[in-house]
């Protein structure tokens, strides 16, 4: 039992509630939310330290022993993602001090962000399928409110679609929980894994796993992503960054967790399906990114394509690929947030979202341009930056297990993303200056400063990848060998 496990969920929840009382005091709200986000980073780091030195930490909520009560499990994979999520949200909060209008701030913006963060951390940490659903819903409810905050016509339209899609997938989630409970009599992830390993993964259970695959794919934007580019483009940059960095990754986490811990017996069916969906996602998402001219939509398709890439690793599921997936997931959360934040500044500077109407921003604000270039190179995976180790490991893993098609898809993705991001760079930053603000926008330096920590992390994560590797390997060892997870849950 370790009560620290609940801290990354509890700190945002308390903050969110306290901020409701202070919704008219903007300054106080900003400071409290930033301090709480930083506290959350500290809690996550502390948890990381504990997990690395003492193994997986668990907390039986209200003292009920594992198969009966809800258990929170902090293994390295979950803790790394919690840490990345709290860092990203701190930077997005800092950015939103300048990047969000007062009207939104007054309408509980900070509360909603913290509720969402609580849902995200909860989804990472929970060891119970139904609790995962509850945390998903907490996160989604706040995201519904965040996406519509401001209330323009476009936001209403996109939110209606977004809610409908998510309500449908949540319904299917509960249905699959019902089937799974009927078939196995338990919902604890570790216990499910044990029961299914004992009785064998029969046909019906594989069918339920396919249903769960559909549910999580909708949330992650794996193949079923038609809703994503529109919805993520509708709200302001700070919110899009949070969505692009956190929401799809939670779906991805759920996919990796369930298909490495529970449904790994019928890999020729389920993992084959995941692989096919991943390749389709990469191709469609890549073409989407290449064909668009709207900055936010290009980034939206980028999110989709990299989800496809991480799913490739899940389809291969050997040691190298999963290690790469963990690394790439952490990198992707940070770099996608950074890209969305920088794109927000770009759009504010030029007053348009269409890159063919932009031009010459580099002469106007060179720092923005170079930061965008470095972020783009990190997405693509140019060696000294953080995208490289993960990408290398995933492709290496797929070559090791002889799945050349998957490796080819990974390389294809790299080329298409490179093209789509460099297209933004060439059209928006080079060329003749046009459609720029008369005077220099005075918020730009502050906004750039608030996204600088993310930039720094990308570089450090790439350069000192060797120092970061032990943590990633601890994380992937649990994914490869489910018994470690099961023993940790049932040890008390």
């Amino acid at each position, binding site marked *: 039992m370790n009560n620290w496990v609940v801290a990354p969920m509890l700190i945002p929840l308390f903050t969110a509630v306290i901020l409701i009382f202070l919704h008219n005091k903007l300054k106080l709200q900003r400071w409290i939310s930033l301090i709480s986000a930083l506290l959350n980073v500290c809690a996550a780091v502390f948890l990381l330290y504990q997990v690395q030195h003492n193994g997986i930490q668990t907390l039986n909520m209200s003292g009920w022993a594992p198969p009966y009560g809800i258990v929170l499990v902090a293994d390295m994979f979950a803790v790394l993602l919690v840490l990345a999520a709290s860092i990203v949200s701190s930077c997005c909060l800092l950015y939103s001090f300048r990047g969000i209008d007062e009207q939104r701030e007054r309408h509980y913006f900070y509360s909603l962000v913290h509720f969402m963060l609580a849902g995200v951390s909860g989804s990472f940490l929970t060891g119970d399928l*139904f609790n995962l*659903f*509850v945390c998903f*819903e907490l996160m989604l*409810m706040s995201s*519904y*409110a965040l996406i*519509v905050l401001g*209330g323009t*016509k*476009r936001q*209403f*339209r996109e*939110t*209606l679609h977004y*809610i*409908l899609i998510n*309500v*449908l997938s*949540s*319904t299917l989630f*509960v*249905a699959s*929980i*019902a*089937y799974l*409970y*009927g078939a196995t009599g338990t*919902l604890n992830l570790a216990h499910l894994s044990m029961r299914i390993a004992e009785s064998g993964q029969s046909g019906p259970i594989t069918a339920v796993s396919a249903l769960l695959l559909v549910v999580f794919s909708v949330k992650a934007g794996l193949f079923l992503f038609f809703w994503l580019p529109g919805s993520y483009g509708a709200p302001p940059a700070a919110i899009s960054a949070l969505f692009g960095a956190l929401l799809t990754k939670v779906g991805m986490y759920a996919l990796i967790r369930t298909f490495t811990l529970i449904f790994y017996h019928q890999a020729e069916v389920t993992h084959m399906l995941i692989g096919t969906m991943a390749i389709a996602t990469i191709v469609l998402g890549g073409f989407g990114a290449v064909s668009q001219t709207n900055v936010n939509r290009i980034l939206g398709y980028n999110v989709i394509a990299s989800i496809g890439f991480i799913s490739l690793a899940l389809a291969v599921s050997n040691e190298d690929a999963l290690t790469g997936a963990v690394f790439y997931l952490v990198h992707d959360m940070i770099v996608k947030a950074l890209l969305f934040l920088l794109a927000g500044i770009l759009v504010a500077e030029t007053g348009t979202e*269409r890159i063919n109407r932009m031009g010459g921003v580099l002469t106007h604000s060179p720092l923005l341009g170079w930061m965008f270039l470095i972020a783009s190179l990190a997405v693509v995976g140019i060696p000294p930056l953080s995208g490289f180790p993960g990408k290398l490991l995933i492709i290496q893993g797929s070559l090791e297990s002889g799945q050349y098609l998957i490796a080819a898809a990974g390389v294809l993705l790299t080329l298409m993303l490179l093209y789509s991001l460099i297209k933004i760079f060439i059209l928006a930053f080079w060329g003749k200056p046009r459609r720029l603000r008369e005077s220099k926008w005075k918020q730009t330096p502050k906004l750039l400063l608030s996204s600088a920590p993310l930039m720094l992390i990308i570089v450090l994560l790439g350069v000192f990848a060797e120092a970061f590797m032990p943590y990633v390997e601890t994380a992937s060892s649990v994914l490869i060998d489910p018994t470690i997870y099961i023993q940790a849950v049932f040890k008390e």
Partner: protein
Amino acid sequence: MEVIVAVIVGILFAVGIYLILTQDLLRIVLGTSLLTHAVHLLLMTMAMLKTGSAPLLGRGAEDIVDPLPQALILTSIVINFGITAFFLVLSYRAYQKLDTTDMERMRSESSRHRGRSQ
């Protein structure tokens, strides 16, 4: 008994999906709430339908009913209550803003809008 409830679940699912596929926003909201009812019924059926006592100490161990699905259903009802309410408020606001509850018209307006901006 389970078979009958299973059929009812199927009917509820069919009606819910039919309503979601219509164009009117209000019907879509009703459809989603019907779907969630179907799922709750499914959850209850999966744990076997039987009459028995609550699994409390001192009530006799025979014939107790599994309490977990009911706890799950209650949680799920609470969540869906919140979401449906939010969805309704949002639809109402969207109706005020966009002057229509017809999804088709909303979309055509958005494509017109997109055409203009290009």
